[in-house]
């Protein structure tokens, strides 16, 4: 049985399915955590009414299921003047890159059985493009937003889409420059190398500035508060005004999937990936350590969202160009000088 599972092709499929299920489950649970967390932070109760079989409330955990069912059965409206093909494609364009990015993340320590090397990431780590892949695919998410906004043929949605793309592009720069520091100190673009380079000391300590820039940019990249200009659900009208039913939920899924990917990337780049004192000596322990870090970063997403108010657009741009990019440059130079000094 175990042997069968460990056959390379089967193992690949097992990994893909497992990762996919876990990510989607985390999306569902994420919405629940988001709403319950928000409620508790605001002295409310939050969703707790939806009961399984009309009996078991289980603290509202069935709410995402109910929401999903609702989305699934809602009437699907396509506006009369919308570009129908792009309108349908946009949610997919948003969602697929978000999940694809996760493929490069190593979520556990690799292991050898019977002389065969098994690694716990979907893409083989041998490809020396790990970090590049992540950024390349991750940047495609913005197309989903801008295409959706444009295809809706609605001035408000195009405004939301414009803002979102400008914001993502601005912060992409700072984010990438921050990562250059990590790549420099590691000397490789391979994510498993990045992780193994952090054995003992996580990157967050020596490259604190870079970590900070990456962390802030992460919020902007995922359109989360305090940078939720794309959506601005409380007052501005976002890129998906014309979307409903499953298409809308695809955008929502994409947002959470993006969050998970970004959080996983932060864990990998700065928090030592699956490294954890004592726990990472077992395979399952390393996966657990990775998930724990991931979940706590995700919680910080929620936490920040219900603490900070939204930035003004000019503040957002000023922060991106005048603070984040210089800071990431400083980080890069410091790392480079340090490496040069050490030889």
């Amino acid at each position, binding site marked *: 049985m175990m042997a069968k599972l460990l056959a390379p092709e089967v193992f690949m499929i097992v990994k893909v399915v497992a990762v996919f299920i876990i990510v989607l489950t985390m999306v569902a649970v994420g919405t629940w955590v988001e709403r319950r*967390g928000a*409620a*508790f*932070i*605001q*002295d*409310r*109760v939050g969703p707790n009414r939806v009961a399984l079989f009309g009996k078991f409330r289980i603290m509202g955990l069935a709410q995402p299921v109910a929401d999903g069912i609702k989305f699934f059965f809602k009437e699907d409206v396509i506006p009369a003047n919308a570009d129908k093909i792009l309108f349908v494609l946009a949610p997919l364009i948003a969602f697929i890159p978000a999940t694809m990015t996760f493929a490069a993340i190593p979520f556990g320590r690799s292991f050898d059985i019977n002389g065969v090397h098994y690694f716990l990431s979907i893409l083989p780590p041998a490809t020396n493009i790990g970090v590049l892949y992540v950024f390349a695919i991750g940047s495609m998410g913005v197309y989903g937003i801008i295409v959706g906004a444009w295809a809706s043929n609605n001035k408000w949605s195009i405004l939301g889409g414009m803002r979102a793309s400008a914001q993502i592009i601005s912060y992409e720069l700072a984010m990438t420059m921050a990562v250059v520091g990590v790549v420099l100190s590691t000397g490789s673009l391979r994510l498993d190398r990045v992780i193994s380079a952090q054995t003992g000391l996580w990157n967050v300590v020596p490259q604190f500035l870079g970590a900070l820039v990456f962390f802030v940019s992460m919020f902007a990249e995922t359109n989360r508060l305090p940078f939720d200009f794309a959506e601005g659900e409380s007052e501005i009208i976002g890129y998906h005004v014309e979307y409903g039913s499953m298409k809308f939920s695809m955008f929502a899924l994409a947002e959470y999937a993006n969050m998970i990917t970004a959080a996983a990337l932060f864990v990998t780049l700065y928090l030592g990936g699956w490294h954890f004192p004592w726990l990472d000596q077992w395979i399952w322990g390393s996966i657990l350590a990775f998930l724990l870090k991931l979940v706590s970063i995700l919680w910080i997403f929620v*936490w*920040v969202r*219900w*603490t*900070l108010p939204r930035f003004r657009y000019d503040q957002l741009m000023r922060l991106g160009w005048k603070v984040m990019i210089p800071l990431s440059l400083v980080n890069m130079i410091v790392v480079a000088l340090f490496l040069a000094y050490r030889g």
Partner: protein
Amino acid sequence: MKKEVKLSFWDRLYLPAILVGMGITIKHFFKNLFTPPSKRYTVEFPERKKDVPEWYRGLHRLNTRDDGSVKCVACYCCATACPADAIFIEAEDIDDLDESYPREKRPKQFIIDLHRCIFCGFCQEACPEDAIVLTNEYEITQLSRDEGLITMEELIKTPKKKMD
């Protein structure tokens, strides 16, 4: 008025302020997490009913005398006082006159249009017979507009205030 505030470098870093803010929110989070649902601020409505204060003005009630007849004498004082014109009364003669009490008039119809009513309680103030009172009843939704016209028979059946 524009107030110029000079921010120090420490202030302009924003990070400490953000951390303090996050401290506050997480404090609330844990406080609510460990509070049993029955003691939270939010009252879970259908299972638990909020105890409204005794001065709460909810659904109207027409009080009755000991013999079960409506106290209302159709004097129109409430309808006159009503700022929303929500009360409609038609008066009627009582033939069996009780000599101990000067009753010769009673409402034939007494309708309150709940959609017009603003629950100001002026009718209660105006009533010389203590006939109309606003109770603590607040579950007063209807499925149609016609049901919002509350008749005398329904008004008599409105439960009394707890304090009464």
